[in-house]
């Protein structure tokens, strides 16, 4: 008797353990929340300087990206992210890590065709859809502004 694909799919699903969703969500909330709270702390600290709000926002992002890049380069980021999951992936830390890890991984293939060409393999879609959405949003605002 030969098993059908659907039946085997159900059998495989039954015997494959699921990810611990509740634990993962709690960890993601704690790590992600801590990163955002840290960033907000930086923002507040910068507000006491002569920086404008735009400048302090940019500097906060630069600091988060720099910390991520350093932790990725020293092989620490993936160990944290293994527990944090979406907590480190959703903030700008996830975006920074995806670029730095690709740049590191492909440096053996040379600076141009390795590091430079491959560094956006994971982050590329984020940039494409981010820019497309921004353009669409801009167009909507423009059209509404006409009236």
């Amino acid at each position, binding site marked *: 008797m030969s098993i059908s694909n659907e039946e085997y799919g159900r059998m495989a699903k039954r015997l494959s353990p699921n990810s611990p969703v509740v634990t993962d969500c709690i960890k993601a909330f704690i790590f992600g929340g801590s990163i955002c709270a840290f960033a907000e702390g930086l923002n507040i600290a910068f507000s006491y300087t002569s920086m404008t709000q735009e400048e302090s926002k940019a500097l906060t992002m630069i600091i988060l990206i720099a910390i991520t890049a350093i932790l990725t380069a020293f092989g620490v980021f993936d160990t944290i992210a293994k527990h944090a999951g979406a907590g480190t992936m959703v903030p700008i830390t996830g975006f920074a890590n995806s670029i730095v890890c690709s740049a590191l*991984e492909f440096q053996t293939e040379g600076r141009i065709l390795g590091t430079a060409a491959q560094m956006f393999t994971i982050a590329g879609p984020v940039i494409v859809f981010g820019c497309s959405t921004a353009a669409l949003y801009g167009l909507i605002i423009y059209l509404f502004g006409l009236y």
Partner: protein
Amino acid sequence: MATRRGKTIITELKPKVIAFASAVGKKEGQGPLSKEFDEIYEDTTMGEDSWEKAESLYLKAAISKALAKSGLSKSDIDIICSGDLLNQCIGSSFGIRDFQLPFCGVYGACSTMALSLCMTSLMIETGAFTNCIAATSSHFCSAEKQFRKPLEYGGQRPPTAQWTVTGSGAVVLSKDGGRGVYIDKIHLGTIQDLGILDSNNMGAAMAPAAKKTIADFLSDTGTKPSDYDAIFTGDLGSVGSELLCELMLKEEGIDLGTVHKDCGLMIYDRETQDVHAGGSGCGCSGSVLCSHILSGMHKGKYRNILFIATGALMSTVSSLQGQTIPGIAHLVNFRKG
């Protein structure tokens, strides 16, 4: 000349295992089989600047060690048959380049150890080859780079994911000699695809192929699982092993019972080594065969075993194009005379 019964090939010259060797990485060296490996290299870069070059050195180390243990010189070897997971099998071709021996590259994904043993057995059966080497290798880092994400990428692995073994295994097969361990039968598997799409669940993709090969072999030979001291599958892991036993019972009415063991579940300690569903990769079945299994046969612990290495024949391109994962399993029946 070898003969065929169904899909199973019965050897006539009975290719002899005259030596074997395994070379593994740090993590494998910390696992339950640590005392059984020939070489454990703590530095998984092997002092090289790329993971691909490192993998080739693991293969080179295993072949050199097996050759040294066989007592043969390089010029006695007629051919090396090897394969790996990397594109165009560069792990093997660059690892074997310096030996200056005829080379037959094979690709069977993680089933390569059994495939290269099948090929070299048939070569010996022709009478044109006397001493052959069958080998394979895999490396966690080169496999991650090719099939998944860069090493430092901050992602989570699902519980069904397996850990690619960094290691290599090599067997010297010969028409004569050895200490009584020989290849009695071989069985080249048939591709099975039951629609699994998840590349993080290789065990589920490969289990139907293992089931098909074992069932066909048992039917061809008129034997049952209890006739064997052990039935070793390559790298089904915890999910694939459970699926294999359930499929076997449900479809064939055959209970594999306690005879079945999986190299992917033997090489790591799943409780402490964070490998989720177990080990995988060509080097998984390769290094376990060339340590625990064959030394167990030499010592007389096992006298009649089935070694079934399993492979998932997809690529990153086929996965991105939404294709399901075809599985394959090749079988080698080792006996001790």
